[in-house]
């Protein structure tokens, strides 16, 4: 049984430089009126690229700023994915997203393909081609200083964003916008160790930007932050271009942080399905950047960005988050869903920017088939290892937990939903045919996950108050041994959310519906046993999942007896969350 069609995007035509085009126009327009010199960015403030600390451990969760300190959640990445899944607290999300502009990213903006193309395309810099490399600093300084570079980029970005947010762009006081890549997670500071990127942070940051709290939010109002939302979206798209190494010219790749799926060679590089390739590559783990030069001009001309991947197991949870975020990106960017921005998109964002999302499909196929999923034993693995030879090493055969499986189910559901219609996607007929057939394979994967969740993690639960005689279900680490570990109420809610969504959108089933109702009754029972939320002590993610699960269940099964009580959960958690949001925004 193949879960997904292999190399679904082998023949996908991905327009060259499609994402780079998103900034080309304003940067051209943003040349210095005095000198016509290109704008060149500097490195993140306070971080020396040559510092030995640049290769140190990147631990954003331990370096929170004031905003991040408001959350008691151990993992902010997990919190943001929960927040995006809940699609609630738009004001808080906006605050989190816009806070990103206060920190600088790990990748100098001179290396972001969009900026780099502008620098190299500038005719006045052609003279540099005859300048020996050691003189870059000297000659580059003649044409531009770092402040001018920053100003030009800021101007270009504002010009672009004002297409969507004219009122914001017209404001007198605007924050300085830069296009450096991979800023730290919202709520954290740039680690002193500097240039390191953790993929799960990228996905969770993107999930915020692409959620209802993002530029698309119907609830958001035009404010001082409005333009920053678009800025973060443009930055994310540019990051995506760099991650896959799509932004090169003259046949050379710029960037590329993917590693081969067999993990045998630590050589981060590009992955472009347009070209023939011997192995699917994907994004995972944590990568450290070393730069060959401090000089922005030299970086733009010669690159010199070298990434090394920290060898480690690949967790399914991380990949599931990536796939889920990619599906959400397709949803937000595809022509079908542009709504009021239909006419705006071509000038603000390249029309085919949605194709970036499709780049994850080859790895989704390659990683799930045989690596994360053992079809024979129906095992869904929590990790895969680079040490595997012809399979998976015994040490990494652990079954993925319920939370991870739920996230994977959400990703599958999202992709099936997105690929149910492909008429608006501008791809070759062959690719379109492959995309149309993909939901069938994805559905098999989703069916397997649901089967695993039902059979391995769900089990009847005893009512500790002894009041209910109805059979209710809960989520356990192992349903065969329910005496041991009942998972957290957060996991319970997330599993319920994923199953309700699957039953509603993918696999209508009286059997699954009955089990979901029993699971909802179990959630209600647990909530009644211990209903409390203290934002000064408790993590936020469980409340988000409670709210999300309760609301989705009530909306899906309004006639279910338990729905009336679940409305109570929804109302109470909503009240808690709004209180928390107000406190956090103060």
């Amino acid at each position: 049984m193949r879960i997904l069609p292999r190399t679904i995007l082998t023949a996908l035509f991905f327009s060259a430089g499609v994402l780079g085009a998103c900034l080309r126009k304003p940067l051209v327009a943003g040349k210095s009126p005095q000198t016509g010199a290109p704008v060149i960015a500097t490195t993140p403030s306070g971080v020396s690229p040559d510092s030995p600390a640049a290769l140190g451990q990147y631990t954003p969760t331990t370096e929170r700023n004031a905003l991040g300190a408001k959350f008691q959640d151990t993992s902010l990445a997990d919190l943001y994915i929960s927040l995006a899944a809940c699609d609630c607290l738009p004001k808080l999300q906006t605050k989190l997203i816009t806070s990103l502009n206060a920190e600088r990213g790990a990748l100098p903006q001179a290396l972001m393909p969009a900026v780099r193309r502008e620098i190299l395309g500038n005719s006045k810099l052609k003279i540099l081609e005859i300048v020996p490399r050691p003189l870059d600093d000297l000659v580059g300084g003649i044409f531009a200083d770092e402040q001018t570079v920053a100003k030009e980029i800021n101007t270009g970005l504002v010009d672009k964003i004002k297409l969507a947010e004219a009122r914001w762009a017209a404001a007198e006081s605007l924050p300085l916008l830069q296009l450096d890549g991979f800023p730290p997670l919202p709520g954290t500071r740039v680690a002193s160790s500097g240039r390191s990127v953790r993929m799960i942070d990228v996905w969770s940051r993107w999930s915020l930007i692409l959620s209802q709290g993002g530029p698309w939010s119907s609830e958001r109002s035009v404010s001082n932050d409005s333009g920053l939302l678009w800025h973060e979206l443009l930055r994310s798209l540019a990051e995506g271009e760099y991650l896959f190494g799509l932004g090169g010219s003259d046949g050379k790749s710029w960037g590329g942080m993917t590693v081969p799926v067999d993990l045998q060679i630590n050589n981060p590089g590009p992955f472009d399905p347009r070209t023939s390739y011997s192995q699917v590559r994907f994004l995972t783990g944590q990568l450290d950047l070393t730069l060959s030069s401090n000089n922005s001009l030299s970086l733009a001309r010669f690159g010199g960005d070298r990434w090394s991947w920290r060898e480690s197991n690949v967790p399914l949870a991380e990949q599931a988050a990536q796939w889920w975020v990619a599906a959400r990106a397709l949803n937000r960017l595809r022509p079908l869903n542009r709504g009021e921005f239909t006419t705006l998109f071509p000038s603000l964002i390249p029309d085919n920017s949605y194709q970036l999302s499709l780049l994850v499909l080859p790895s989704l196929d390659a990683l799930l088939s045989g690596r994360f999923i053992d079809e024979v034993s129906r095992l869904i693995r929590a990790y895969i290892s680079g040490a595997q030879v012809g399979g998976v090493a015994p040490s990494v055969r652990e079954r993925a937990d319920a939370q991870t499986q739920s996230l994977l189910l959400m990703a599958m559901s999202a992709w099936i939903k997105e690929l149910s219609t492909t008429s608006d996607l501008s791809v070759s007929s062959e690719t379109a045919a492959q995309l149309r057939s993909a939901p069938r394979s994805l559905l098999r994967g989703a069916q397997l996950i649901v089967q695993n969740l039902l059979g391995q993690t769900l089990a009847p639960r005893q009512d500790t108050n002894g009041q209910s005689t109805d059979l209710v279900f809960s989520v356990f680490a192992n349903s065969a041994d329910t005496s041991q570990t009942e998972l957290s109420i957060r996991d319970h809610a997330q599993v319920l959310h994923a199953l309700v969504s699957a039953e509603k959108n993918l696999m209508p089933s009286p059997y699954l519906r009955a089990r979901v109702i029993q699971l909802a009754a179990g959630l209600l029972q647990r909530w009644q046993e211990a209903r409390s939320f203290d934002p000064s002590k408790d993590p936020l993610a469980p409340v988000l999942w409670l709210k999300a699960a309760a609301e989705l269940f009530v909306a899906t099964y309004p006639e279910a007896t338990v729905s009336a009580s679940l409305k109570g959960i929804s109302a109470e958690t909503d009240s808690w969350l709004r209180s928390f949001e107000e406190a956090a925004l103060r």
Partner: protein
Amino acid sequence: MKKHARWKFQLRIFRAVFALTGTFFASKKALAQYAGVVPEGVLAVIGAHRSYQDQTNTWNANGIRTPLTSKARLSFDGQHLLQGEGGARLQSLAEELRRYEPQPDNPNSLVRRLNLGTLNVGGSGKLNIQYFGFALGLPARQTVYVAAPIVDLQVRTNFTLTGANNASAIKDELGALAYEELRSGLAQAALLTERDIKASIEAAEYTGVDSWRYRNFADVVIGYATDIVEADETTSDEPDFSLQGEIFSTAPTGHVDNPDVLSDVSIGSGTWGFGLGLAPRIALGPYTLGLEANATGYLPSRQKMRVPIADETIIPANRRTTVNVKTGLSWEITALAEAKFDWFQPQYRFIFKRHERDQLSGQLTGNYEQLMKSSARTQWEHAIWIYFSTIDAFKRNEFPIPLRIKVAANQIFKGYNSFDESFIELQLTSFLPTPWMPE
């Protein structure tokens, strides 16, 4: 895999029933009784026809007589399908259903609720035996004999599937949650028919699914009998003790179970057998009480068989192998009471038969225990024999030829792993002089 490949059903009871028939033939060693110890120089020529009642019943391991149809009734519910009783394909279907359940043993679980109906494995057998033998009297009350049973056995099987089938309802309940293959499997299971079952058996390279007939020799017996203590027929007022003994051998001329024929049974033991018999008697006037005991041991042999992996009945052809067989000892004891009149000789017999467990082994890993399971058998029988004899009249020159006609009715009244061994028999024995007959 073919559509119905590897669906199997349980015929082992049915097969075991008829397999006993062969064992019976092989162990029937008291052939000297055909003619007793024949006078010196006399050739006894024996011909007989034995007709069994239609084989529609069997005795199970608990000693209960059960109709073949009910005994071979198989419930195709989820629990049995999980155990492989419905074949590999239905087993995997049940296993797939079980994966949705945290507690598959719960009566409300999908797999426990699945029911495809009940398969009734019907069968009947018609069995007739003719045997022919010769016994030659030697000096000093010794006799050698040879006997050749010819068996005519027809086995017919039939299958009926009855009861409600809820596979379609289970499929609807699962809805789109089920894999395409599972939905397809449930849809096919909902339409399960007897024809599917037969097709699945034939797909396992079995022939003789519907019927099988054998008409040929069983194991031929040659033997030697003698009066160890000769009866004193001159006195009638005192108890007269006599003891007859015999040694015999059975030749492997009978059919041995062919692993590629579904409904055939072993008619012979497949190996040489060697036995001893003793028949003490005590007579008082025309009345006699006696015992007949014999035991047969067999040489080890090698036979082709299909070895199951677990307890499957329809075993794939690739499980065919040569098995080392140590056939268990067969023995029987008969107590009899007899009255002897001039030409009329009624006899009542009470019979105990026992076949000890066979031992099988082979290089192919498998469940040999399953093959040996029903090989230990016990039968309790009784019979009435009536002889009509012209021997005394011939001796008095009142009848031209010495003849003896036996009419017998045999009935089993208790059995364990046994077939229903009830029959009637008509035997004719004639005695011919030879040139070596003393004056």
